[in-house]
């Protein structure tokens, strides 16, 4: 059974790659069978000119039939391949969308969780600046902390803007 399946697959593969050659083989096969039949008739002594005409007049039609069958197989295989590619692309798009959606959710949750402590830092720093406004060392320190906390806030915002939108 497996060998039959593999034979069918090989035939399909041949049809896809060389449709003209395969249809040629069909034609040769038909001609071979027809000639054998004619030879048998000739041997029996009942071969007529009409028999020869019947066999050879059918040859072009047989060739066209073989070619159209092979072309149909070829087209069907090509369509199946296109369908597979489309399905794969769609699946990939869905996976990407799901991943992006999960990242967006994580980003929202992180923004929510990070911005509360950052608000505490920002308000505390303003309060501290008032208290230490004559001490330049402490004032510089509070300014540095303020810049750093603003950078933390912008990391998530920039990431969301550049990667997730």
């Amino acid at each position, binding site marked *: 059974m497996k060998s039959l399946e593999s034979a069918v697959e090989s035939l399909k593969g041949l049809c896809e790659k060389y449709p003209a050659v395969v249809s040629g083989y069909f034609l040769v096969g038909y001609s071979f069978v027809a000639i054998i039949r004619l030879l048998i008739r000739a041997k029996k002594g009942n071969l007529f000119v009409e028999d020869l005409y019947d066999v050879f007049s059918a040859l072009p039609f047989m060739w066209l039939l073989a070619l159209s069958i092979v072309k149909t197989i070829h087209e069907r295989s090509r369509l199946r391949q296109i369908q597979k590619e489309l399905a794969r692309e769609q699946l990939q798009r869905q996976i990407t969308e799901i991943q992006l959606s999960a990242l967006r959710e994580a980003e929202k949750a992180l923004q929510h969780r990070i*911005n*509360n402590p*950052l608000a505490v830092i920002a*308000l505390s720093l303003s309060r501290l600046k008032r208290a230490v406004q004559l001490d330049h060392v402490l004032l510089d320190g509070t300014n540095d902390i303020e810049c750093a906390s603003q950078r933390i806030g912008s990391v998530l915002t920039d990431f969301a803007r550049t990667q997730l939108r």
Partner: protein
Amino acid sequence: MNEMQVMETIARTQTNWRETILIVEDDEPLLGLLRFFLDDAGCNVLSAKNGEEAVDTYLKHPGEIDLVLTDLGLPGLTAKDEISMLGRINPNVRIICATGYIEPTLRTEMFQAGAKAIISKPYAPQEMLQKVRSVLDS
């Protein structure tokens, strides 16, 4: 004008605020700091840690609360429900929502529910005070 000068200006000009503000915030350090800055501006400050407490406090002080400054990510009652309930108690209630993140759709819903302004965390004190003042004056 640097931040210090802005703070001093606000401190000088706004110490006469006499309005009562209800802060609804579950983050205690943040609540403490908001209380500090609003106290400093001369406001009478009330606080609540969730939506239910906010509604209770609002009912206990009928006609006294001029503005509600509420966080959006509160435990229990959602901010939207809290705003709707406050709106039913007093249709003219002034509410400012503070949030670390808000979706555009939720922002619209908040305004439809009755919020007058939305402030994004982290905010500087002067930004918060200016927002409070502008909503109080509106």
